[in-house]
């Protein structure tokens, strides 16, 4: 089966899968960073790795990029000039309140469909789409239900697996036996994590903490809402669009007040005691939220910025997290 790769949570895996293609959400690796961009100041490390990974990827049939952030939008320009992999740039509106913005998102899904059929995909019937959505929805629900039974790292891997492998293989990750308890209850908030960043979960646990809210883009915050099962059969595409565009909250939305409402609800319900704010150097969208988050929340916030992955930075991050945990314990 042909694979379509992407990273943005606003790309519905179900839509790609319903076209008979495999939706492969990339979990990026610092090591894949595009060397040509390494000397260019100002490029976000995540974007650098995305470009590097796509350039090297020999298995994918196509890549979907979105306009959610400016650097990703411009990464598309690099890819279509330097890479033979067919690429699609999907407009994801920043504004979300108006009917026009919602319609634009749906129109973009239809345009994505034309791209996918051009790569050999098959335009899905409503029944096919509904079936795929049901599968994903069930798996997502299983992952969410298993949250309290999994270590934070295992939970993050389950979410990553759903994006990368699809619903079939994900359930292996969520066979848990007993609830995980203890540790200082923490949230991790920010953009997407990369593969190496998953070590943070273990580091935090070793330091006496536990991530009870993964509000990164690759974590729970990047999961769409559960589908309305009745509407799923009547108007599956509309339901899909509502669940993704209508429910995934991000720093890039204008206004992004819903992100803070979501955070307020989740931080309170999970009795979070501290926040780890993870951001990439040159990611303006998340960086600008740091001070606001500190003002918004009464909780202590630890800012962990990253310019890439190297031993010195790992050591610095380790020390900062340990100091933060000592303060909270």
């Amino acid at each position, binding site marked *: 089966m042909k694979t379509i790769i992407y990273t943005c949570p606003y790309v519905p895996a179900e839509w790609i899968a319903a076209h008979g293609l495999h939706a492969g959400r990339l979990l990026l690796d610092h090591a894949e960073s595009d060397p040509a961009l390494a000397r260019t100041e100002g490029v976000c490390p995540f974007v650098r790795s995305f470009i590097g990974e796509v350039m090297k990827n020999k298995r994918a049939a196509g890549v979907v990029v979105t*306009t959610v952030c*400016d650097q990703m939008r411009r990464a598309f320009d690099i890819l279509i000039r330097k890479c033979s992999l067919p690429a699609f740039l999907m*407009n994801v509106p920043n504004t979300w309140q108006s009917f*026009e913005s919602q319609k634009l998102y749906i129109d973009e899904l239809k345009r994505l469909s034309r791209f996918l059929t051009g790569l050999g995909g098959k335009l899905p019937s409503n029944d096919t789409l509904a079936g795929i959505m049901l599968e994903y929805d069930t798996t997502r629900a299983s992952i969410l239900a298993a949250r309290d039974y999994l270590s934070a790292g295992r939970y993050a891997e389950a979410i990553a697996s759903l994006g990368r492998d699809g619903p079939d293989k994900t359930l292996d990750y969520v066979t848990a036996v007993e609830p995980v308890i203890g540790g200082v209850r923490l949230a991790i908030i920010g953009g997407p994590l990369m593969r190496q960043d998953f070590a943070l979960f273990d580091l935090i646990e070793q330091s006496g903490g536990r991530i009870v809210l993964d509000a990164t883009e690759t974590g729970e915050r990047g999961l769409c809402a559960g589908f309305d099962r009745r509407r799923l059969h009547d108007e599956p595409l509309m339901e899909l669009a509502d669940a993704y565009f209508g429910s995934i909250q991000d720093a890039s939305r*204008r206004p992004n007040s819903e992100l803070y409402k979501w955070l307020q609800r989740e931080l309170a319900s999970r009795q979070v005691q501290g926040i780890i704010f993870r951001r990439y150097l040159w990611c303006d*969208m998340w960086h600008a939220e*740091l*001070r606001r988050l500190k003002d918004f929340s009464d909780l202590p916030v630890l800012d962990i910025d990253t310019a890439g992955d190297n031993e010195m930075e790992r050591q610095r991050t380790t020390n900062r997290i340990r100091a933060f945990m000592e303060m909270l314990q």
Partner: protein
Amino acid sequence: MSDIPKRITLEEWGLRYEQLEKAGTCQPDYGGPLSRHIEDGDQRLLKLRYDNSAAALRLWNFLLTEEDRLHEARAAGRKIVGTMKDLGTVPVMAYCFKNIVAFYPDGAWWIPCVMELGAGLLQIADSLGIDESFCPVRAMLGAFVTGAHFPIPDMLLCSVGATCDDFSAIAQRLNGLGQPIFWWEIPHRRSPEPDEIAVNLPGGFSAPKCQVEFVKSQLERIKAALEELTGEKLDEQKLSAGIKKANLVRKYLAELRHFAFTAELCPMPALEMLIAEMLAIHFCSDQQETINVLKELLDEVTSRVFAGKGILDAGAARIFWVNPVADLQVMNLLEDCGGRICGTEYLFTHALDIIPEDIPPLEALAQMALADPMAGSSIDRADRICADIRRFGAEAVLISRIPGASHCALEGRVICEIVQEKFDIPILEIEVPPVIDSMRPSVQTRLQALVETVKARRQT
């Protein structure tokens, strides 16, 4: 009185001003000696070099009195509308209302330069978590907090979507501090697909009709909001008249650019040309006076060109400049190093292109908004730069990086590559902070190297 065009210092302008006064030069009510602006804290003016014409004096005075105009408008009961990021589209509509004065708070990005960091705006931005990793437009945040540089607008409009992340994030921070913002969306401009109706936009780009329709729907929202703010209805006739007036500004600017960039002897310095181009964005809070200022500047340039006079040597290296500079002094520096500007792309070419007058006016504005070079791909932008390099005969390209700007790192590379593919000309990237003093020697050396390279290539 000497009528030889030349670049002079602010001190020299004192004498020149007396000469012009004695000669009976008429000045508008905001006129006066340039040196008086130093009292407002505009220290950078002491370090700039200016064109010595009466037209340039009027241009500078017009620019440096904008804050006064905004306060006068507020005192007169007119509505102040802050338009952010779209750089040129919304003001065309806003100035169709009798009771609106529109301006760009974005323009605060020059305050740290003009006041040589004396206003403390960047420190305020720092304290709000918007540090130097963001573009200098973060000064806008400080300007809103102090309220000392422009009246707080009655309404703030901000375009998002296909914009730079810096501005979008800073505007969101402002919103998070309690400032209401009317957000509107410009999607990333893309090429029409085979089954879509294509629309040719001003400036030469194209987009699918559905995107034009989408932006039109956004502009309809803005129109309704402005109508509610003022209680005045904006019909098609009024909007068409406003577009005609905006086009007059653009026609003057097109002629100015043509003469300034193609004349054998450069008739107007780069700095005055940069300011003239900026007037197209929001008319410096007075649309009619913008037309008058540009007309006088154009008359001066035309007379110089026909008299064979200029402000630089005939052999000046012909440089195409990409992106606006945060420190105005760099425009002087290029000329000091033996270069001249022959083509510009300051990120608002869509504010210079003629707006179509033969289609419904709101659709025309939607086309203009979509033609924004920031809204499309870097490849589109590079293609337009290439077309203008050819048109103006530039011998080199200078890309001025904006510190921290989300678009500069990646698009600079694309623009360089595409220009190199199409032309065998040197390209240089420099980064220009709000005050360049500490970096001046290195920037100067790089500019000199570019100019020397251009001149050496002429001999081979």
